[in-house]
């Protein structure tokens, strides 16, 4: 392991792209597209190194997560890795398993990425995002709502994946909120893969022994990295049964849209500790002013998936 002052040099594949940032990483990150932008210093360095057991002045947000008022954070997953969000530009990872294990990236591109997005003053929405007709369509909801499955199904209809699980929104962009593309990969459970007629052969498991897999779309090099204007957000929920008088897709009033989006801010408790509640709530108003927000109800077994997908496409270009 390199020491804390060790300098990370561009890997054999060179620097990488993530949400508009130039990333230089010790860890192999096969899901990220190569950096094709300007010659500039990296915005983010991911180092392999020692992570202190306790951050100075840390508050325990959960048994897994310490945060400080200086907006540092330490996430620890026993047997996988410890992660230290040290600044807006640096993440230190201390692996407890082979450094190229997908398990390590599962949490790096989960909670750690979400906290980095907060730290960089952007909005991480708990959503997957698809580009339909040049516009961003976010599919938001809790784990199990079916975000990734719907997103993957939409890519099979010719649309491009912009991000999975965390949708990074810049509401301060000129011309309205935009989504920063992350990487072309979704995480799908065995049953979702099967529902789409795919198997898990040859796919990396999200965690060792878990039947949840990384599905990477071929050609990270072709990944479009330009920010995408946000056109629609679908707040997704799964329901076992149909209820009478309830449409599958329902456009929400501004107040219901604000409330629904506020529930889907990713890593909200830490964001509140870091004093971001007010600015995030304002950002939600900007999103609701610029984008259409829908309540999307799907059946738990994904029956009627095709009609849902067509409705999402129709609303995206209306």
């Amino acid at each position, binding site marked *: 392991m390199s020491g804390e002052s060790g300098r990370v040099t561009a890997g054999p594949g060179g620097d990488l792209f993530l949400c508009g940032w130039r990333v230089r990483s010790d860890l192999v990150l096969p899901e990220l597209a190569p950096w094709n932008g300007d010659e500039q210093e990296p915005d983010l360095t991911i180092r392999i190194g020692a992570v202190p057991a306790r951050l100075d002045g840390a508050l325990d947000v959960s048994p897994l997560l310490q945060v400080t008022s200086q907006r540092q954070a330490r996430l620890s997953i026993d047997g996988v890795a410890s992660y230290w969000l040290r600044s807006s530009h640096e993440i230190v990872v201390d692996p407890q398993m082979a450094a190229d294990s997908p398990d390590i990236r599962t949490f790096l591109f989960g909670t750690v990425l979400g906290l980095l997005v907060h730290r960089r003053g952007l909005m991480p929405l708990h959503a997957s995002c698809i580009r339909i007709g040049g516009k961003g369509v976010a599919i938001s909801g809790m784990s199990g709502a079916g975000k990734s499955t719907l997103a993957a199904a939409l890519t099979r209809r010719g649309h491009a994946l912009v991000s999975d699980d965390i949708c990074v929104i810049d509401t301060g962009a000129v011309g309205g909120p935009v989504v920063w593309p992350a990487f072309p990969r979704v995480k799908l459970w065995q049953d979702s893969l099967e529902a789409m007629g795919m198997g898990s052969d040859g796919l990396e498991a999200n965690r060792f022994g878990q039947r949840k897999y990384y599905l990477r779309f071929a050609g990270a090099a072709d990944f479009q990295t330009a920010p995408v204007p946000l056109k629609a957000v679908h707040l997704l929920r799964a329901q076992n049964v149909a209820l009478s008088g309830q449409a599958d897709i329902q456009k929400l009033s501004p*107040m219901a849209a604000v409330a629904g989006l506020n529930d889907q801010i990713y890593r909200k408790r830490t964001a509140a500790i870091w004093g971001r509640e007010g600015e995030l709530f304002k950002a*939600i*108003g900007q999103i609701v002013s610029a984008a259409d927000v829908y309540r999307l109800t799907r059946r738990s077994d994904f029956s009627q998936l095709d009609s849902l997908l067509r409705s999402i496409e129709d609303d995206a270009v209306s």
Partner: protein
Amino acid sequence: MRSTLSLTDTVSRAQKHLATEVDGNFILMSIEGGTYCGLDEIASDIWRRLARPLTVEALCQAMAANYRGDREQITADVLELLASLRDQRLIDVG
């Protein structure tokens, strides 16, 4: 039980609340209660005026000066809105 405010009360925005604007109208959230409150155009105008503490009477006067309508009716509408905001802990009444 909802008690009415008096014209001499001073009102101001509560410390703990969240506010955002959608197309010029405010949507508020009480952090303590976890409830949301959507304001229409006129209520949003009142909310803007509550940025600094003022008396209910001054608020009613300002509204009467800016909107047509019966002065008593305006006063009654303002009082009703303020009582509702107070019950949702979105304003302080002193």
